[in-house]
């Protein structure tokens, strides 16, 4: 697992203290409506440099939509997102990488998928080959390098997607339920990789349904329900003494399937 460590050593010393970490990304009054449905609304959020923010919430709460908004894939209908202090523009994804809930694989081999992502980010020649090999090893997919990516098993695809995102060395990593279909060992390994990336300075935003995972990884927690921010704050407070009923219910496993959203 030394791969990520070697991948990013630049920032590894200055793991930044939570309190004084500068905001890397800020959302103010963020909302998103599609065809008259208000999917996300009134979200105020600060993602601090070098911190791990875990997004929690029931199915359909708007977690994936929120990640898309932060990543600049969906236009905000209301409010703004600042990335490194500037509104999201054409370069919204510079320095970011996202792993989607449902990994999208090009119709190419595993290796070609990695190479494509690296090429796009400007890696060439031996450097690209090195990073691709490292990513393969990281994902435990060396033996499948030449297999078409789309015939991989669900978990293998998920691992490839994570490795592909990490390989380009992003500053901000957006992960949408990255371990949902991983076996326990792979989950542990990916968590370790996320920890290493974090240690080397990568800022992480991650969606999960796994309470244990949230507890293991989160510095900050954001809890969404019905498209709104039910509660947010440091993991230590939020996960142990939540203020909102929603979070309390979720932690108890009582927060059942969401009720119909109130229409706008």
């Amino acid at each position, binding site marked *: 697992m030394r791969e990520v460590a070697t991948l990013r050593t630049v920032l590894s010393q200055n793991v930044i203290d939570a309190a004084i970490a500068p905001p890397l990304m800020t959302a103010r009054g963020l909302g998103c409506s599609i065809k008259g449905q208000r999917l996300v609304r009134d979200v105020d959020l600060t993602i601090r440099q070098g911190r791990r923010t875990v997004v929690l919430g029931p199915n359909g709460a708007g977690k994936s939509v929120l990640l*898309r908004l932060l*990543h*600049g*894939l969906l236009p905000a209908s209301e409010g703004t997102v600042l990335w490194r202090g500037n509104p999201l523009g054409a370069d919204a*994804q*510079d320095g*970011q*990488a*996202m792993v*989607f809930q449902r990994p*999208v694989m*090009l*119709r*190419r*081999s595993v290796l070609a998928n990695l190479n*494509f*992502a690296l*090429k*796009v*980010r400007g890696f060439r020649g031996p450097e690209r080959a090195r990073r691709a090999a490292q990513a393969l090893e990281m994902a435990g997919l060396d033996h499948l390098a*030449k297999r*078409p990516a789309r015939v991989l098993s669900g978990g293998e695809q998920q691992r490839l997607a994570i490795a592909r995102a990490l390989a*380009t060395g992003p500053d901000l990593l957006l992960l949408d339920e990255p371990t949902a279909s991983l076996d326990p060992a792979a989950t542990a390994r990916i968590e370790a990789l996320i920890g290493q990336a974090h240690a080397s300075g990568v800022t992480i935003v991650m969606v999960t349904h796994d309470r244990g995972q949230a507890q293991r990884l989160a510095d900050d927690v954001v809890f969404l329900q019905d498209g709104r921010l039910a509660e947010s704050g440091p993991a230590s407070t939020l996960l142990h003494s939540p203020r909102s009923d929603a979070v309390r219910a979720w932690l108890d496993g009582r927060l059942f399937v969401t009720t119909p959203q109130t229409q706008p």
Partner: protein
Amino acid sequence: MSLVAGWDQALSEIVLLSLQVTLSAVFVSCLIGLPLGAMVGAFRFPGRRPAILIMNVLMGLPPVVVGLMVYLMLSASGPMGVLGLLYTPTAMIIAQTVLVTPIVAALSRQVVEDLHQEYSEQFTSMGVGPLQRIMALLWDARFSLLTVVLAGFGRAVAEVGAVMIVGGNINHVTRVMTTAIALETSKGDLELALALGLVLLLIALLVNLVVMTVRGTAARASYA
């Protein structure tokens, strides 16, 4: 068929010219139409719907009209008359290219758009630039696009109206299979015309076979 058999040299000359003109036109059409279709299929821009509409409409460009337009361009009294291209294979290639490009563009637009629906967010997330995006989409859709290209080939190889006008069906110079068929038909030699039609279909079969074989090999190679 014996008619055809006894006509060896003239026939092979015509067949070769047919192939040369058609394949050149399809090639140029793909050079223009595939990226164009991919662009309109993959990017959102103002005027996109009109662009799609125009491409779809131009699939119904009448060959005779295309022939006339190219004729008027290339005619000695036209703007490009000095080039002396009228009644040459080049003129026929130009006319067929005008005819086939919209077909390739409109159909590949659809194919690429369908694929892009799946890739779009991933590409944006990766920071894939416009050119890379188009290349990657065309590459990943290549097997579906083959059918599009074959549709363009079909249109070109069967086309007679445009090449007749700009080529002139001049014996040994611009006579191709379709104009030869039209000529034999007008001579009332329907049997020969049909026999030539069969030969034309055989040519199309051959081209399709080659394409499918290459496709099969490529598909197998892309797996390994």
